[in-house]
């Protein structure tokens, strides 16, 4: 798994590539938590390189969404691979996350 993060004032950009599973979900959790300082209002998560996720990874996404909502922030996921989108659909996650086809639409929303 490869994670790249970038913060620009109230906007945080996170790109995750590879797998998030029970052996490495902590890494993902730490990376997104590190990015969330007091002034981040929007987090944009580039999922184009994410090719596998299990319940451990889904849990981190959910925890992140809960956290963003309690602080009045917005979490936006974009460019999800179809197989990952399917997992989000199956778990009912697609209705509780803001999911966009690409970065441009995520930024505009």
């Amino acid at each position, binding site marked *: 798994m490869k994670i790249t993060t970038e913060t620009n004032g109230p906007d945080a950009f996170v790109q995750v590539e590879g797998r998030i599973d*029970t*052996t490495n979900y902590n890494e993902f959790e730490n990376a997104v938590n590190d990015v969330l300082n007091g002034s981040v209002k929007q987090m944009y998560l580039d999922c184009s390189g994410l090719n596998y996720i299990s319940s451990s990874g889904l849990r981190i996404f959910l925890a992140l969404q809960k956290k963003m909502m309690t602080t009045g922030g917005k979490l936006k996921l974009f460019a999800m691979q179809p197989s990952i989108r399917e997992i989000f659909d199956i778990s009912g996650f697609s209705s509780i996350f803001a999911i966009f086809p690409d970065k441009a639409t995520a930024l505009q929303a």
Partner: protein
Amino acid sequence: MEETQKNKTLVIRNDISELNRLVAFLEKLEEEWDLPPSVIPPVNLALEEALSNVIFYAFEKDTEHEIRLNFERRGTAMVVVVTDDGKPYDPTQKEDPNLHLSVEERPIGGLGIFLIRQVMNEVAYNRVGNKNQLTMVKTWNT
């Protein structure tokens, strides 16, 4: 059309890092058995969820156990059997999570076993002697 039948076994330790070995094994299996791309990803996910449960909950702390995974291809079906000698536990009895709860209401856990049932075509549990046996089947069209 001939019936292709193949059989392979992987034995892992009750250590979560063994999941990495499983991933490599499955990649090789996909190649060797010339499986369509729709087979291994759900099998991988179902196995990860099933094995995580076994590794975290089936055994006494700090004990070493073997978990046996048997893979069989029967034509256009992949049958996976997971056998462990841990505490009796039937994952098929677990209730489905409520998928319609809002973000605030959704509990953090409870998805693993549900996902197994969603991505595999058949899931069955048996207690055989002192062993848990979980059988999962993934089928495809050709």
